């Protein structure tokens, strides 16, 4: 049953591309939206569906897909961000041909992500991450600008290096236990007489590959270039979900199922996380380009997710997943807003923006909401996830990192203040008079995401115990 998540988009993709001439412009667009929405709906309703009933025709094929709460969070996030990317793309994509290819590639990355999130084998994880990565290279360079090419090529090289690490890891796994599934690795790690050291090294090397793909600090070189040079729709996709699925999902899966509360892994995650938080925030402060600043902000926020994993406790994983979901929402919201600003002003250089909050009220307000949520200011969802992270770290005895996480959110607020001050909150300069509010394609996703942020934020205490808590929040949390 779970394989439908991967098979259906594949079939739709092939159908779309067979009879190209006949299809009117909006059909690929609609297909992507429907599939994205399907992801969200089925993701939410997963526990009620008959998960392991066989599909009649492909009964003997078994893909070893498995789904738990963590997968459902990702499916929902993937669905939402794909829809947002589709919306933004419809507005911003210029040439007809680029538009059609964009939709197809969007489906490819949907397949790649859906597959990655559902599988339970290291090597297939590598394969599906490569699928998503390839789709992202092409998507970044889809408008063939020199900067896009540079961003894509650098991403490709670093992704290749990441692939090398992952494959060496897999090779060592095959060498030690001859099997690459999560469960097998987990058993051989936990049983007494196994040779855990080499296997732990294998998983460690695999994790380095994930660090590179996730864009954590010492490995983050490619991320700012890729995000800022990509076309608007693509940067929403990349920042929203691709980096997180290809980098962070596997980390959470490993932390949850494979290396459960392993001290050395926790320390690595803590150090990498806190480095990302601090360096990402500090680099973001001085930026003059809006998208590049948001890219560094993503590094910093991903750092928060990883530091939560570093706590090594059940609460830590809950906090990481919840912050991941929140970050997917408000980061794509911020990139949608930067896309709408770019569509109206033609540039993302904050120096030339000067107080367009007055001219573009919707964009201004939604950016404000996303910004405050990112900085962890209460009424919005970001506050709750940062609070959970601090609680998890404190409960796990990592007070120092908890203090760092809290104080760093002042830096986060700092660079968003710079953005607000230069772009939205100032006095509009004369040549901006002609600027009108962005078109519906931008405003609708922005408002929807802003609503999600606000509602999750305001009603979180109720959400915690309600059956709807698909965000697996009811574990070990008292208040």
């Amino acid at each position: 049953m779970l394989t439908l998540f991967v098979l259906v988009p594949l079939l739709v993709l092939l159908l779309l591309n067979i009879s190209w001439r006949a299809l009117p412009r909006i059909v690929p667009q609609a297909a992507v939206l429907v599939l994205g929405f399907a992801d969200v709906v089925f993701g939410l309703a997963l526990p009620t569906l008959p998960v392991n009933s066989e599909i009649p025709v492909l009964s003997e094929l078994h893909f070893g897909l498995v789904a738990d709460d963590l997968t459902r969070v990702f499916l929902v996030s993937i669905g939402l961000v794909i829809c947002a990317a589709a919306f933004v793309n419809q507005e911003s994509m210029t040439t007809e041909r680029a538009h059609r290819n964009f939709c197809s590639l969007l489906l490819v990355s949907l397949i790649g992500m859906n597959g990655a999130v559902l599988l339970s084998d290291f090597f297939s994880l590598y394969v599906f991450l490569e699928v998503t990565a390839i789709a992202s290279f092409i998507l970044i360079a889809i408008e063939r600008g020199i900067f896009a090419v540079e961003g894509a090529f650098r991403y490709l090289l670093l992704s290749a290096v990441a692939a090398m690490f992952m494959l060496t890891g897999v090779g060592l796994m095959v060498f030690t236990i001859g099997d690459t599934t999560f469960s097998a690795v987990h058993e051989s790690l936990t049983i007494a007489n196994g040779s855990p050291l080499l296997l732990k090294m294998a998983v460690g090397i695999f994790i380095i590959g994930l660090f590179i793909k996730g864009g954590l600090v010492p490995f983050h070189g490619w991320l700012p270039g890729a995000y800022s040079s990509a076309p608007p729709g693509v940067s929403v996709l990349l920042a929203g979900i691709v980096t997180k699925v290809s980098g962070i999902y596997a980390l959470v899966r490993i932390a949850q199922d494979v290396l459960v509360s392993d001290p050395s892994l926790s320390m690595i995650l803590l150090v990498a996380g806190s480095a990302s938080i601090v360096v990402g925030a500090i680099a973001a402060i001085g930026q003059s380009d809006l998208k590049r600043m948001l890219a560094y902000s993503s590094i910093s926020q991903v750092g928060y997710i990883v530091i939560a994993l570093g706590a090594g406790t059940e609460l830590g994983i809950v906090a990481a997943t919840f912050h991941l979901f929140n970050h997917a929402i408000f980061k794509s919201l911020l990139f949608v807003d930067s896309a709408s600003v770019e569509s109206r002003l033609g540039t993302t250089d904050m120096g030339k923006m000067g107080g367009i909050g007055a001219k573009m009220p919707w964009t201004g307000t939604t950016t404000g909401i996303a910004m405050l949520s990112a900085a962890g200011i209460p009424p919005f969802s970001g506050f709750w996830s940062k609070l959970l992270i601090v609680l998890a770290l404190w409960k796990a005895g990592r007070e120092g990192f908890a203090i760092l996480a809290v104080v760093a959110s002042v830096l986060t607020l700092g660079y968003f203040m710079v953005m607000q001050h230069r772009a939205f909150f100032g006095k509009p300069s004369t040549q901006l008079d002609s600027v009108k509010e962005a078109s519906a394609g931008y405003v609708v996703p922005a408002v929807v995401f802003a609503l999600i942020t606000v509602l999750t934020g305001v009603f979180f205490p109720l959400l915690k115990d309600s059956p709807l808590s698909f965000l697996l929040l009811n574990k070990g949390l008292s208040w």
Partner: protein
Amino acid sequence: MSGELITLYVTAIVLVAVTGLYYLLVTTSLIRAVIGLELVTKSITLGLILAGRLTGKVGLGQALAITLIVVEVVVLVVAVGLILLAHRHTNKVDTRDLRSIKG
């Protein structure tokens, strides 16, 4: 399989991997960088098959190697495509031209 032979295999794999990596890091020509990449892929394929062979899981080793080769080919195709695009803009395939995104 004798111990000395295995060390020989491992040394060869590591040496070729290091050469490829070194080539990738140092060269100024984009194509040579991708060649370096290919060298590393070859060494890893060999490594996988060796690992499969040593633990008797030859079938698994081959399956992984085949999938790996397919994936790496597609990555290579995309890389060459990007190089051509870069060439179209700068008329030469030089890594120093692709260093403008800074700060």
